[in-house]
Structure formats: structure tokens, C-alpha cells
């Protein structure tokens, strides 16, 4: 299979960096859902030793941008962006890595992946996670086994990371539909692509931190020549009304 046809829908996430408090809830709930889900397990090596490491589909970084008080701390969740030009798919020699036509989700077939890791080199965003134990590549599935899961209530058919985020900083929807809630958010808030210069055309978008609101200039205090006496007089006047 060469490449893919432009997907009918472009399902993805919109992540609000103005609201993310960096709590890692999405990352852990993702791990919890997916370790027993489509990509099970999300293996952990040396889990109780000095070199613990594991497979995670979503990781929360924090950055500082700018200097001193004028700067900002920004918490930054990072997972697969389900790119429209996913080189992770085109470099894959086996076809194990593929982008779905119906919704644009990029997946890995663990039954055919040979574990060559080339896709992880091709992904600029570090969104691919190699399971050293199973010898196959794994990655965010956009919770494909939740969003279409007919055994869970319709309102809850969103990715685990979205439904768990306590700050509601993650939004899920069809970014191919300009009328969708997520597209509207992106338009309103100036949602942007990561590393646009590489041309991967990520579906996931990030909403920038809003500018801060510095303290307003103090109001000139009322002329108060009489000091405490004046103040008390004012209190009396006000109260005797």
C-alpha cells in the first residue's frame, strides 16, 4: 500500500497550553487505558529498580519561555499528532505503520511490525514508543478502542486523556470539519502546528498561552487630608444613611 488517500475525517486533539497545569493526569490515564487496550501491554522495564522506563503514549514536559517575571512556565503535553504527511508511515518498510483513510488515525500493526525503529527516526515529535520487550513499535492510537467503542456510553467515547484531564485542557474532535468545536477553538485562539517547517502537517493543534494581565495602575487614593479622622467621618456618614 503506497501512502494513503486523504482521510475523510481528521480526528485529533487540541491542547490548550494556557490551561494545562502539567499534572500528568492525561499521561497516566493514557497509560492505564492503553496498557490493557489495543496496544497491550505498555511494558515497563526495571519497574522497581534504578533504571525504570516504560512505554508511554503521552508525556508532559515543562518549559520556561522568556526571562524573569515577563516569562512564563508552560506545561507541554506531547503525543502523536496524527500528521497528514506522516513520514513515520512512508518510511515503514513493512506497512505495519499506516494512516487510516476513514479518520486519519496513524496506527501500528503489532503483528507485522519488524521493530526496525525507522518510523521513530522519521517522527520529529518523538511520538513513537518502542516496546523493547515485545520488539514492536507502539504509539498513541487516539484511543481507537474508546472512541468507537459501542460498549461505553456515547458521551464518554473520547480518548482517555481527554476525558480525564482535570483542567479540561484537552479537546478531541474532527479537525477536518471547519464547523467542529475543535476547529472553532483553533480558529479563535490561534491554534498552531509544532515544527511547521518540517511539513508534516500535524492534525493535533496547540493553543498558545494567553498573554498575562499585569497589575493595573493604582487608582489615585481619595484626597484624605484628615487621615484617620476623615476616614472615620466617612464611615459615620456612610452608615447613618
Amino acid at each position: 500500500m503506497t501512502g494513503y488517500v486523504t482521510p475523510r475525517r481528521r480526528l485529533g486533539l487540541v491542547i490548550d497550553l494556557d490551561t494545562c497545569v502539567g499534572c500528568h493526569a492525561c499521561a497516566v490515564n493514557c497509560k492505564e487505558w492503553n496498557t490493557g487496550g489495543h496496544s497491550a501491554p505498555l511494558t515497563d522495564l526495571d519497574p522497581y529498580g534504578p533504571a525504570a522506563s516504560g512505554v508511554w503514549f503521552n508525556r508532559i514536559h515543562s518549559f520556561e519561555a522568556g526571562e524573569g517575571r515577563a516569562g512564563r512556565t508552560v506545561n507541554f503535553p506531547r503525543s502523536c499528532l496524527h500528521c497528514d504527511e506522516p513520514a513515520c508511515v512512508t518510511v515503514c518498510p513493512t506497512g505495519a505503520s499506516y494512516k487510516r483513510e476513514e479518520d486519519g488515525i496513524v496506527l501500528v500493526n503489532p503483528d507485522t511490525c519488524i521493530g526496525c525503529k525507522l518510523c521513530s527516526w522519521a517522527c520529529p515529535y518523538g511520538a513513537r514508543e518502542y516496546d523493547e520487550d515485545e520488539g514492536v513499535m507502539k504509539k498513541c492510537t487516539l484511543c481507537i478502542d474508546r472512541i468507537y467503542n459501542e460498549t461505553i456510553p456515547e458521551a464518554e467515547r473520547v480518548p482517555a486523556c481527554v476525558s480525564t484531564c482535570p483542567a479540561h485542557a484537552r479537546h478531541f474532535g474532527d479537525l477536518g470539519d471547519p464547523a467542529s468545536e475543535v476547529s472553532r477553538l483553533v480558529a479563535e485562539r490561534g491554534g498552531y502546528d509544532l515544527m511547521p517547517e518540517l511539513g508534516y502537517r500535524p492534525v493535533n493543534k496547540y493553543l498558545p498561552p494567553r498573554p498575562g494581565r499585569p497589575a493595573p495602575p493604582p487608582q489615585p487614593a481619595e484626597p484624605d487630608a484628615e487621615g484617620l479622622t476623615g476616614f472615620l467621618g466617612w464611615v459615620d456618614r456612610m452608615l447613618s444613611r
Partner: protein
Amino acid sequence: MERLDPSPPVSDEVKHTTCYMCACRCGIRVHLRNGQVRYIEGNPDHPVNRGVLCAKGSAGIMNHYSPARLRKPLKRVGERGSGEFVEIAWDEALAIAESWLREAREKDPRRLAFYTGRDQSQGLTGWWAQMYGTPNYAAHGGFCSVNMAAAGLYTLGGSFWEFGEPDFERTKLFLMFGVAEDHDSNPIKLGLAELKRRGATFISVNPVRTGYSAIADRWVPIRPGTDGALVLALVHELLKARRVDLDFLADYTNAGWLVIDDPRGPDDGLFARDEAGTPLVLDRGGAPRPWNGEGVRPLLARPATLADGRRAKPVFLLLAERYLDERYSADAAAAITGVPAEEIRGLAAELARVAFDERIEIDQVWTDWRGVTHDRFVGRPVSLHAMRGISAHANGFQTCRALHLLQLLLGAIDTPGAWRYKSPYPRPAPPPIRPGGKPGELGPGKPMPRPPLGFPMGPEDLLVEADGRPVRLDQGYSWEAPIAAHGLMHLVIRNAWAGEPYPIDVLFLYMANMAWNSAMNAAGTVAMLTDKHADGSYKIPRIIYSDAFFSETVPYADLVLPDTTYLERYDCISLLDRPIGKAEGPGDAIRHPVVPPDRDVRPFQDVLLELGARLGLPGMVTEDGSPRYPGGYADYIVNHERAPGIGPLAGWRGPDGALHGKGPPNPRQLERYIAHGGFWHYELPSEALFFKFANKAYLDHAVAFGLIAKAEPIVLQLYVEPLQRFRLAARGHGPIQPPEHLRERVATHCDPLPAWHPPFEGQMVSEAAFPLHAVTQRPAAMYHSWGSQNAWLRQIHGENRLYMNRGTAAALGIADDDWVHVTSHHGRITVQVRLMEGVEPHTVWTWNAIGKRAGAWNLDPRAREATHGFLLNHLISELLPDGRLPNADPITGQAAWYDLRVRVEKAAVAPEAVEPALPPLARPPGLADPPRLLRYGAQFGRSPERRRVTAA
């Protein structure tokens, strides 16, 4: 093509219970497959978390299946700390505990000190201690946030902490002081999301810009321990600008109450009262009258002469006189806090503008306690929240009072858009419970007449001997800490070791890692636990400990009672303790076993009730001496009545479950809770939602639910009279007076109006030698010490750094990743730094409780937590540098963790690992080697048989 099943059934069974990966009490849905936990998610119907779940909650599976779980009762056979235990049967364990406890009780119940940590069954444990007859009881509040609780309860009859919440739906300006995570973890995050959605302004006052502060619209970096100065400057500016809510003050606070002005007299500073004891105000007619008299409206600014000729001033006048003084100006505060004066003035103006010019109104008829009907709720959409950045300082009580004063001046208490009480608050300020355990109330085999913890109104309520010495082991309710409403847990081990004020026989700890991260002076604490008399006996003779996991404290116990995990037991998040009430109404919840234990462990509450029955404690046995609650805690939850009709759970009471709040026990109550998702929640009618302290509909409801005794208004206390009573005693009045060495301290700090003083440690050490403040923050994804056993969470926080301001570090010649010595007056640690922009230049900080003792938690002794994780606790002393007074707030005894002063120097050579490193702990019997590879979930996936290549 790939075999892809987009619709696999998640589980074969879903159970609803309450999370306990922290104290936030979120509702969870536990999905089980073949009896194993497949997935835990937030319960969308639950009032606390509304479907969301934090990192810890999502990692519950890994705590539940942790290889650090204790498996069977343990009896120490080697030296304390050696880890040499034998496994014993429960019968033997209970018999040993029973004999130790019985012996102590028959000698003097005070010889038992019973202290609990992060538990949620204080309703039970406090009652048990009362029935046992020991005042030496407290939960973790004393080292946690009693400053917030006490300041709030004495001022508002409610408090920040988890007893109130900003009106996130309506507030327009949210000001947060010193909060990193808090007990309301998920609700705060949900609230911040709501603020962001609405475009409200969020300001964070915090020396560090991470987490919540990172998303604030404005970050105000403040020097630690100076918030009181900042807030009182805001008060100054508001008064000066005449931007205060006089009507609110006159109607709902004690602003108009007359305070006797008789400097040398025994009643100086007390309220002028009528014969019935009702405080007087100067009525607008000009005469002193009882504040609650028919039609009485107080004047606030005029001095009065009382019938007996003494002079008196309304509280508000005292307040204006004090805070209008230039000592409280923005310029003065700027020098102390590091926040520019212009900014302080700007903030004051902004607060006033939003409170008064952007007031909100809700058209809703309501009636106040006087019977006056109002056609709307007028809201001041400014809300405040504060926690340990305020409380963990030795001036925290008064700083928190200052915050409440600020709220009161703005009229921003329990109005739309302001900070609101969460049920079961408000209660009278302070709640009418006095601490039990006065000298005459104690005796061999005798229960106490009242619970050990309460709220003193004056010296007569203190727990002191005739000579002024403390009754309690932890010095609570003594002159060292007169309003120690939660005890002083951080002094327990030290005092028990020193035999001050007296030796004890049994130290009984539950769910508190006291030999490590909740110890001040961690290494010293370990030494005290193992210290011996000349005759070879331990200074602390017997230690019983209940933990669910192999924590750092386990090896120091003589008897270990292994608890279940939170998914294996009943629990009760009760109105008698810290329930899940919201501003909209009361609520409580349960935990119930969703999976059976696979080890020989028992719920601690079952064990406690059984010990109570064996000891024959009142209330725990029937007349014939048989156990009163043979069904254990579940039995107790359903059938115990604290007062007629009032039990641990308020929902579905009465034989058929039709009653809520009060009612006789319902044998099927737990089933009703389980069917309802594990919680009960009651929505108040809309007329009862605001101004609860004076709202007739609310007060009537509160009486009906048994939350308060009488439907009387709760007057908000700008001026806290009980403090003045302590002060008078210090001035030499009354029969109960502080010992000489404490007179001055009591007279200074027991100020009925909020004051600010620099933290003690900073006053006692030289600024030049210890120029920096060192504080900790809670990481959102880790809960104190108990998250490190969690295979997932420890990947996120497996080590910690000392964070420093980039500029400060440069001036000290310190580069990113350097190793440094951090030295306090008490000790030194050597750790690695990380530089950052978002930290106040005089502050260094680190994540709390990431450092682990090698070997503990069944981690590899070379785990990064031990080699690259560290505690600041090694630097913090339980006593002040003078070696005498507790390192604590002088009013509440709250541990002053964040008063720590340090210097930081680059280490000449980078060590291999952090210092100090205590010797590794030996693993107790019964625990197996932890796995080298974890494939949790493979059993639920589509191809569980996939190969395993590396087990390295």
C-alpha cells in the same frame, strides 16, 4: 490488514467507590476483568471530580498491586530498625496489642500516644482515643495545615483548606496564595478550567511559578513568610481608599461589637457584654445595645462609654486605627515582601474594583436570621484561596487571619462569586467543642468526657497542669500552642523519646511515615526511635504501627499491623470528619471492597474496633461485654450513633432509607450507597445557597441535618476574643497564667487582630549566614511518600533537584546540574540543582517526599529515589534554633516547615549520590523480590501471548 477491534468490552464488572490515592476523595469507577483491575476512571456523576481523575488516581492499579504491600502481621525480633521480624498470626498480633494497650490504660491512659496520618477515619480514631481515655491523640493536621483550619474556624466558622471553595462559576478575580496542589486537587483544577473558559482573572501569589501558578494571568513572586505583610498592606490601601463593604461588616461581622478599652483592667480587650453575656454594639441611636437586639444597627467608628463608665471601641475603629497606620503601607510591605509598592496598590485597586464595581446579583428572595427578606443575593466576585504556603510558617495563623480580614472588608465571604463554605460549614466561630483531657478528666481505665481535639475559648480550656506544664505529650493546648486544634504531631516522637513532659509506654501510629518524610529532623527521629536507656530498654518502650506498605517507618515498629489497600476495604468519608460536602450542600461517601485481599491483612478500622472491644472500651462493647460491632467497620458505619440519629453516614437513614441527615440506622444503608455510586449528596434549595452564616433557610437546614445545634446566626469574627483572653492571662490576669518564659510570647502573638511578624527561624539565624528560604511543593503526580512504590508514578518523579533562580545561582558561581551543599542551622545535605527563571530570587525549593531511604518500599536499594532523591527534612529541626521552643506557630503549634533558612554552596566534588544517605533498610519477611519486567494489562489485550525478549 490489521486485526483491529474498536469495540472491546472494557470489563465484565464495574464498581463505584472512592479513590484514595490522595485525600481528595474523588469518585471512581473500577473496571474489573476476571476479578482483576482493568481500568480506573473518574465517576462523571460524582460531585467532587465530575468524571476527571488525576495522575495518582489513574495509577491506582499500581498501588493496589504494589510489591511493597505488607502481607501478614509482623513481630520484631531483632533490634529496632534492623528489619528483623517474624510473621505472626492475627490472633497473636491482636493479643500483643491488647496486652500493651490494657497495661497502659490501667496505669495511666496518657501512656498511650495514638497518632494517625493521612487517614480519613478520624471520626472513629478520635472517638476511640476518647473512649480509651488518652488526650494524646491527633491526626496529621498539626503538621499539615492547622493554621488554616484554626484561623478560619475562629474567624469564619469555616476555612480554606478543604472546608471552603471559591465560587469558580462566578468569580471574576481569583487570588491564590501559596497553593501547589492542595487536598482539593481535582476540584481546583476543574475550577481553574472554568475560570479560563470564562476569561476571569487568576492571580497567584507564590515564590514559585509551576503548576497552577504557571497558568496564572499574573504571578506575584513573594518572599516566603511575608504574605501577612502583603495582605495587611492591601487592607491599608483599601481602608485608605475607603473601599470597604461597611454594610456587610455591620450586618454580618463583629465590626460593631464594642471592645473594652481599659488597658490595665482584667477585661481589657474583651467584648463589652450585657448581663446575659451578649456582646454590645453602639446602636445608631447612640446607646450600647445587644448586637442582636430587635432593630439594632451598629455604628462602626464611634467610641462609646459603657454603663459602668468604662470606655469601649467598636472592633472596626480599632482595626482602622491599626491598619491605617503607615506601618502597613504598601511601601513598607514592598521592602518586606519584594513585591513592588505600585503593584500592591494596583492590586488593592483591582480587588476593590471587581468587588464593588463589578458586583453580581442573583435574583433570589432570601431571608436572614432576623427575618428580614432580601430580594437578591449581592455578590462580590473576588475570591481567595490559600494553603500551605501560608500555613507552614510560624506566622501562618495570623497571616491566614489577615486573608480572612481582607475577604471580610470586601464583603467577599459566601456571596456569589466569592469564597464559599463547603458543607458542613459554616459552624459557629469557633465550633462549640472544647478539648477533652483536662487534668481532672483523666484517670486509669477512664474514658474522657469529650473528644481530645476541640477549640479553646480561653485559658480555662487549656490542657495544662497547675504548674503550667502541658497535659498532652505533644504540648497541644498548652501555652506553647494554646489553639493546637489538631495537636502537634511533629513533637510526638521527640517528646516521647525525651520523656517530656512525661514518658509513655506505647506509641501507636497509623498511616504516617513518621520516621521519614513527616519527620522534622528525619535522621534524628530515627535515632530517637532506636535510642535506649542505660539499662538497654528502649526510650520509647513499645511501638505499634499500621501501614499497608513497607514504608520507612515499618522497620521501627515492634508490632506491625498490615492494612488493606483502598480497593479492599470499607471506609467512610463522614460528616463527622472530612466529608465531600460542596457549597451546594452536604455529601458523604464510602469505600467498599471491590476486590478481596490476597494477603493476610485486615482493615485497620476493623482492627481498631476489635481492640476496643477486647479492651472493653465504652461504646465498643454491649452490656454483656461482647463486641458491639462484630461486623467490623461496616457494622460500625451503619449502626454507630454519635448522638441520637446522627451516625457516620447521613444518607438514606431510617429503617427504610427515607431520611437524610438525621435518623435511626438503616441496616441496608451501605447497599443504598453502593447502588448510588458510593456517595450521597444533597442539594440545598437556591434560597439557602449564599450568606449561609446569616441565612435562615440555610441555618434551618443545617439544624435539620445535625450540622449545627441551633439555628443561630454565625457572626464572622474580625476580632478573635479568645486570643485576647490568653493575652490577658499573660498580662497577669486570672487564675491560669503562662509560665514566665512564655508570658512575653503569648502576650505578643495572641493578638485578636491579625498581625505580621517575621518567621522565628529567620529572626534567630543570621541573614548573612542563611540568606535563602527553602520550601517544598507537592508534585501533582505523587502523593507524599506513598507514590514511590508505584511503577508508573515513580517514572515521572523518581528523583528531585533543588530548584534555584538562575540569577541567584550565577552570583554564587553555580551552574545548572551542579552539586551543592545546602546548609541550615540544623544540618547539611548535598544535592543537585536545576536552575529556573520562575522562582523568587531568595527562594530555593524542591518536590516534597521524593527522596527515599535505600531499601524501603521494596525498591532496589540503588533506586534513584535513594541516590538522587532527597528530603529537606534533614535540614528542618523540630525545635527552634534556641533548642527550646517548638519550630511552630505560637498559637496553633502548626509545624513551620517553610520557615527553613539555608545557604547554598557549590560542592567542590560531585558525589555519586545525595548526602546524607542513611543505611539501607532490610526488607521485612513475606515480601518477594519485585518483578524486573512489568506487562500489566497484557492479560486484557488482544494477544497476551506475545513474546518477552528482555527481562533485563
